[in-house]
């Protein structure tokens, strides 16, 4: 068994207009432990009002990725992984951001970012999330949203890894099945791919994209980022959002 996946992050119009870099970041990869292959996907969105949110997002993904790999190599399975392990991943990411902020002399909140992650393999999956954006998984032939995006009361507020109360907003979910398809994305896409009135994932968005990933002849990381970048920058996408947009897609191949 193995995984095919692709990841893409494009800068939104708001940042392009202001000549600023994008503030989203993502990591996706497969790790082999004995005869099993685990998929790890992470996306993070740096807060819009910060100077270094994009750097925070990068650190969060990179450090969480390393921590998850270590845990997986020791555990060799998903099911022994505890909530305390997940909190450790997030705490190590946060710790690295705090150190980064201290080194640059900027307040930690200038590095504010969300963090969403998913680790899947050998019949199990574990997902976690702080802030908005979402994970969508195929479960019994339906696309399910793992955590509904955690927004504050207002559309422009959410929760960050850098918040003092970050553990209060950390959500963790386990699945005792192997999702064949999984997507992780930041809030720039959530209004296009989630129906807020139905509180559901929009099949018409996910189905064709997963079909394309599945049909691709490659293995593991697919060379699809140029096409996905092009897709995420299309005018009909930009008409609906001017935020950064990040999408990780993974498909399990038996």
């Amino acid at each position, binding site marked *: 068994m193995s995984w095919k996946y692709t990841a893409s992050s494009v800068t939104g119009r708001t940042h392009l207009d202001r000549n600023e870099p994008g503030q989203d970041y993502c990591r996706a990869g497969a790790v082999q432990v004995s005869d099993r292959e685990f998929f790890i996907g992470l996306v993070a969105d740096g807060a819009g009002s910060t100077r270094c949110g994009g750097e925070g997002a990068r650190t969060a993904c990179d450090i969480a990725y390393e921590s998850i790999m270590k845990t997986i190599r020791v555990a060799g399975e998903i099911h022994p992984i505890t909530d305390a392990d997940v909190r450790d991943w997030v705490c190590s990411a946060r710790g690295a951001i705090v150190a980064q902020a201290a080194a640059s002399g900027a307040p930690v909140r200038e590095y504010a970012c969300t963090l969403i992650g998913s680790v899947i393999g050998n019949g199990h999956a574990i997902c976690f999330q702080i802030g908005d954006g979402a994970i969508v998984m195929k479960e019994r032939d339906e696309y399910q949203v793992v955590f509904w995006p955690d927004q504050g009361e*207002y*559309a422009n507020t959410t929760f960050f890894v850098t918040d003092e109360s970050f553990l209060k907003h950390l959500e963790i979910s386990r699945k005792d099945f192997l999702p064949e398809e999984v997507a992780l994305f930041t809030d720039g896409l959530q209004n296009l*791919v989630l129906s807020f009135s139905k509180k559901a994932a929009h099949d018409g968005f996910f189905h064709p994209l997963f079909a394309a990933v599945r049909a691709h002849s490659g293995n593991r990381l697919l060379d699809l980022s140029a*096409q996905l970048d092009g897709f995420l920058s299309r005018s009909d*996408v930009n008409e609906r959002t001017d935020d950064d947009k990040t999408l990780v897609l993974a498909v399990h191949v038996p």
Partner: protein
Amino acid sequence: MNDTILLDQQPLGPVTFAENPEPRCPCLLLLDTSGSMAGRPIEELNAGIRAFYEELQSDSLAVKRVEVALISFGPVRIISNFSTADFFLDPTLVAEGDTPLGEAITMGIDLVRKRKEEYRSNGISFYRPWIFLITDGSPTDKWQHAASMVREGENTKSFAFFAIGVQNADMKVLRQISVREPLRLQGLKFREFFQWLSNSMKSASRSNPGDKILLAPPSGWSEI
């Protein structure tokens, strides 16, 4: 929305997007139309409001997201409930009556509360509502209860309340009502004020999670 994209060698079926209501950015204007506004003040106010709607209509995101409600006082009337700028009815406000400022604020806060409930029950996300009070006089009714509702709303971040004094407005009372420092309009620069307000609404309506809503400095229309 129905075109296809090509991913590598494989043609990809048409991708569709979830039909999703835009997040709303509500703004309530409490407008003093008491007798003392007669003549040029009310004319300039009417012209300013018209220009405000035109600005919002010409912005593709603001026209979908910004919702404006108008309440005029004396007497207190809901001129327009919350709606997007494309439903602007172009009311011509007439100066008459006294200045029931307390009643206008209470009714306005209630209107905002109801609108937020409607957003929630329809699964529409929204930004923190803004309330702008514009007055040229001093209240002719009891305003203390209204003032405590404003403080309560600001404390719970239910809305942001701004007070603008015109000409002989009682700035001392406005300071007791508004938690934020009230501003005084330069002369009758309503148009400049509404230009500034539409710019602020446009940037607020496209702000992203984590953005702090920072109003541009009120230059060009306020006395410092």
